[in-house]
């Protein structure tokens, strides 16, 4: 027997529509999704119930420019439990100016296959 809830309600976060999804288990134990207005809702709900993933954003100080911050994010979402460990890695960053938008600041951060990238050009 699975210890997953037989029923879950969640709001899809893929776009601002915010569909209210209902996840049910059918008789065979397969997940069924209801309430999605587009096809993206199904894999989203399954992933959100089994292995939620998130992107994250913060900013880091850039060396060589006075008091300038470069904002950063991940190139894609990571399992939610990686959010705080990755933030700790990002907190060590002190990139040198110039920093370009899209520049990889940490490749394959903590082996997640996802990069930490700058989202702002500084210097």
């Amino acid at each position: 027997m699975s210890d997953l809830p037989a029923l879950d309600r969640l709001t899809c976060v893929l776009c601002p529509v915010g569909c209210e999804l209902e996840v049910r288990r059918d008789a065979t134990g397969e997940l069924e999704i209801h309430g999605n207005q587009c096809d993206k809702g199904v894999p989203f709900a399954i992933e959100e119930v089994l292995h939620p993933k998130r992107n994250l954003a913060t900013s880091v100080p850039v060396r060589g420019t006075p008091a300038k911050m470069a904002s950063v994010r991940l190139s894609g979402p990571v399992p939610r439990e990686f959010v705080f460990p990755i933030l700790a890695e990002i907190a060590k960053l002190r990139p040198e100016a110039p920093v370009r938008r899209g520049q990889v600041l940490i490749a394959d951060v903590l082996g997640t296959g996802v990069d930490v990238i700058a989202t702002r050009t500084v210097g």
Partner: protein
Amino acid sequence: METIEAHDVVVIGGGPAGLAAALGARRAGAGGVLLLERERTLGGILNQCVHDGFGLFLYKETISGPEYAERLIEDVVREPIKVETGAMVLDLTADRVLRVNSRAGYRLVKAKSVVLAMGCRERTRGMIEIPGTRPAGIFTAGSAQNLVNLQNLRIGNQAVILGSGDIGLIMARRLTFEGVAVKGVFEILPWASGLERNVRQCLMDFGIPLELRSTVVEIRGRDRVESVVVAKVDDRLAPVAGTESVIPCDTLLLSVGLIPENELSKRAGVELSPITGGAVVDQTLMTSAPGIFSCGNVLHIHDVADWASFEGFAAGERAARYAAGERVAGGTVRISAGPNVKYALPQFLTSGAAGVEWSFRVARPLRNVQVLVKGKATEKVYSRKKFGRLLPSELQKIKVRQTVKEDLEVSCHE
């Protein structure tokens, strides 16, 4: 005698709406486009919105605010658009003369058409009249976002957030990332005023409680905030005696609404709507002052930057056409907000206009909704659209393809 510098289209404000307006004007063939931005850099509020979720509609991918801004800015600088940052517009007249103070000094600018894109500002403690002492540690959510994301400052250790606007929700997560303990978000209404996705990603992910029908009734502390008193409210939003509890904290963030920044519009005599706080416009986004157009958060508050930009493209294009001599007959058809609708925009149409799209916002959460655009006199249904659910936090659209010659009402029915 003062000399007057002439331009075809002058755009006031270089955020998501103003950048798009400058591009829209240029792409519609305007010869001289001047974009004036008060800050030292273009991009407006996007620069401090480091979270992702921008660009889904404009760029078909989800990016952060700074990336969204840079992409729009790159498009603007490729065009022969004159961009001036550090330029403050001090005054605007109904005949479109601007008094501009910039690094180049003070000067007069005359425009054939003007696009208002000044954005909005946050409601403050004074506007919601929270009783108590006046210690340090009280921030609007957006100013906290600026201090954390752009100035790398730690604003406190234990925070309470009043109001569930999107910036407040985003800041709950941002402060959690920075090691600040967020004790809870308190919302006076029975529903969250921010987007659903932000409630889930910014609060639920981190176990931050969202207390609905609750508000801060007192701020305590001498030099720095020491605690806030929260209480439940009744159906009239009045605090209920006996429900108070004291929450120790050193920081209070306010996310209690945004106000379109229309000081210049008022100077030009532009008619404002008491509901949106922005200009009353026709289907070309022109205000009551001929040749003055409005778009983005100065027109009405948007929940998604992309829609502010789309409005900017449209206003810029219309401003270019006005500058080229095109005239649209005045709006004589009035569109009113019917049952369950907070507002619908544009508020006026030229009689005979067709293919007009309205932005509207509902007054309360609704389920299984039919939205109707009906003739006031004939009861004729011009457009209908069904929604599973509509929330006040979500700006929605409905289009009427047919020609309209009578006053209309937009209404929602469960």
